[in-house]
């Protein structure tokens, strides 16, 4: 089965450090989402791309978060500087819309 691949699976970092999370969407999928999941906030939409163009990043704290899609096989989410409140599981999902979306396994981020 085709998979969305996210790296790293786990990341522990110190407050103030830069964190980069990567996502390889399924080949042929034109839409990519980034979500953050915490117990308190559920699944929050951070950003999303269609055909590599950013369509919505209103859910992201702009001063520290950035999302890019340099090519069709790679989406990145960066946090600089990281803070303890950024600790969460970050999911990437890709799809074609009407067929639903496939989620990656997530990156569990802990900022100490």
């Amino acid at each position, binding site marked *: 089965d085709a998979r969305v691949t996210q790296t790293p699976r786990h990341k522990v970092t110190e407050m103030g450090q830069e964190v980069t999370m990567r996502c390889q969407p399924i080949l042929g999928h034109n839409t990519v989402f980034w979500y953050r999941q915490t117990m308190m906030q559920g699944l929050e*939409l951070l950003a999303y791309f269609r055909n590599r163009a950013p369509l919505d990043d209103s859910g992201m704290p702009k001063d520290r978060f950035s999302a890019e899609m340099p090519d069709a096989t790679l989406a990145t989410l960066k946090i600089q500087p990281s803070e303890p409140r950024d600790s969460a599981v970050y999911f990437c999902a890709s799809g074609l819309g009407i067929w639903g979306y496939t989620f990656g396994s997530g990156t569990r981020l802990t900022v100490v």
Partner: protein
Amino acid sequence: QQPVQSPQAVILREGEDAVINCSSSKALYSVHWYRQKHGEAPVFLMILLKGGEQKGHDKISASFNEKKQQSSLYLTASQLSYSGTYFCGTELSMDTGRRALTFGSGTRLQVQP
């Protein structure tokens, strides 16, 4: 605009039925349903599109009432494997060309033997 799900949690015995509801205050283009097991990623179950329809997937089915902007997920003759958190995700009609998928807060379903 985040959809509203109810109930927040359900506990069932094997073989019992459950209904999970999802509603929006804005006109919907589509409703997605996903299931997430503890420690895993959400998994797509089904999508219902504007126009009102009902779909089935084994003993799990869903309906979409376009006039009320509501969707319901029906789990019949529940099995232990149905346990998990169910999320509805919605795309708004007004977001032509953008279609951001936003999720409700989830319904935790526990099926006991």
